[in-house]
């Protein structure tokens, strides 16, 4: 039991008549890279939104480290250690690169409103400490030369990386990445794969939503395949690769003549 970080029990979400997620039961093991794949519109992003709290499930529960988080607010889940990135990158465009990361360090800031107004020693120390931690993180991801720039000035690959840096600033236990390799070149893939493996070696568990099969094959320990909101297969990449249900979901049924 101790090896399971997150589990969902019969998680469902409907939008009007459309069931985006149908009774999904998934377990995510600690220290592993779990991948969630499936054709477009199969409910992968809905699942991440349910786990991060941006959507509330119609039925079912989500358990994180033996705590039922189904009804918790998104920011509470973030502070508990569930971080995520978005399919369409969402950075804070009016803040600079460093400040983007600082936002996610809030739980490490130990001063209140009055400290801010009176500019107490505690406030200055915590501010300095926060910026230092954010800078160190950016340095690890080779973004430290861009700290004063606005996110919009960065090239695409760096914007992706900055979003990951911001998620890591929470010091999460579970990191959910929504199509991180989308639009990346082969070279950028392998760099991203290296970063992910390093994160896992530091004890972070990763849930990966991905389209790029080569990438999933490279990094994933376990794969769940979604189709029309349901889990149709699970196992290692090699196991699901030849599953007839998976092949038909991706390529369509064989035409019988």
């Amino acid at each position: 039991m101790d090896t399971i970080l997150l589990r969902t029990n019969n998680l469902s979400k409907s939008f009007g008549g459309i069931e985006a997620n149908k009774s999904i039961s998934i377990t995510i093991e600690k220290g592993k890279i779990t991948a969630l794949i499936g054709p477009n519109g199969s409910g992968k992003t809905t699942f991440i939104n349910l786990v991060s709290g941006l959507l509330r499930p119609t039925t079912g529960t989500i358990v994180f480290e033996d705590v039922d988080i189904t009804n918790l607010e998104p920011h509470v889940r973030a502070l508990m250690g569930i971080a995520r990135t978005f399919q369409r990158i969402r950075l804070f465009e009016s803040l600079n690169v460093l400040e983007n990361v600082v936002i996610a360090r809030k739980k490490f800031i130990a001063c209140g409103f009055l400290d801010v107004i009176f500019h107490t020693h505690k406030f200055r120390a915590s501010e300095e400490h926060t910026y230092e931690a954010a800078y160190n993180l950016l340095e690890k991801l080779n973004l430290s030369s861009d700290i004063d720039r606005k996110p919009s000035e960065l090239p695409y690959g760096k914007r992706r990386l900055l979003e990951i840096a911001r998620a890591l600033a929470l010091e999460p236990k579970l990191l959910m990445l929504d199509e991180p390799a989308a639009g990346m070149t082969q070279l950028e893939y392998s760099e991203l794969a290296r970063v992910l493996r390093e994160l896992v070696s530091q004890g972070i568990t990763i849930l990966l939503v991905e389209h790029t099969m080569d990438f999933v094959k490279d990094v994933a320990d376990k794969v769940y395949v979604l189709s029309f909101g349901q889990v149709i297969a699970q196992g290692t990449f090699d196991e699901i690769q030849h599953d007839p249900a998976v092949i038909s979901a991706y390529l369509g049924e064989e035409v019988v003549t």
Partner: protein
Amino acid sequence: MNRMKTRLKARLVVILCLVASLLYPLFELNEYRIYLMNIGLINCIVASGIVFVTGFAGQISFGQAAFYAIGAYSSAILTKTYKVPLSIGMAIGALISLLLGLALSIPSFKLRAFFLSLVTIGFGQIVHMILINWRSVTGGSYGFFGIPPMKIGGHIFSYGDYYLILLLTLMFVIFVMYKIRYSYIGKCMLAINDDEIAASTCGVNVKKLKMFAFAFSAVVASIAGSIYAHMSGFLTPEPFSFFQSSNFVAMAVIGGLRSILGGLIGGMVLTILPELLRLGKYRGWENYYLIVTSLIVIAIVVRMPKGLSQIPHVLLRRARRNVS
């Protein structure tokens, strides 16, 4: 070294401006002009609250005149009808506004932009209707008379004294805004303004910050309203209508929604500009001054979408370029 020098110079300019504005009533003999400045300062205070809630936290409020009214009427009714000490009257007005500001922030959890502004307009209208129709308490459209003025010991406040009180209040409001803006709290507010969803997944308590922003702007407007009530001695519902709310928003926009000095600049410009057209050198525009004011407002919005507060920034940047 150069940077230190420009910073020192900037600090000097700020201090000189403060001293000059503090001494202003000593050199101004025209009572009406001081009164006008006081109205300007009141507008600056309320508009600064809008800069805080709309410019920083990204929540539109077209209901500021309601909080302004609550401050004015609570203070007036408590001090006159119930003979409560003035400072307590003001505090109770601020407390009511605080609670209503918190309540008004609740719709903002779900509603954005147009829908939220409709809610705030509705709130403003409700308060305005109460002022008109609850005659036994507010005096209705006939007005509420005989509000005691502020005084210290036996000295009844003159317009010059109100000027000082208002100026200090405004300075305090801007000081607090400045501290918040450049701390992590202000950055979290800007993050909410940019992308609420991303902010919440970064661990930012979006609801709490919205409540804080609404409450702050409400209390600030309420205090300005209380001082207005004691200064003018009588109240009618008329200056607390939706028109006044949108006027406050216009001030914040003209001054610069994202700027700490936006409320100050916009409030002063939109108070003095119509008067200049009506009286002073440019006299003769009596019949048209509102039209001309509106045209100037439109021109500023079109030419300078970031507001008049950009002017010092642009000048400063130019000066720096010349130095280096």
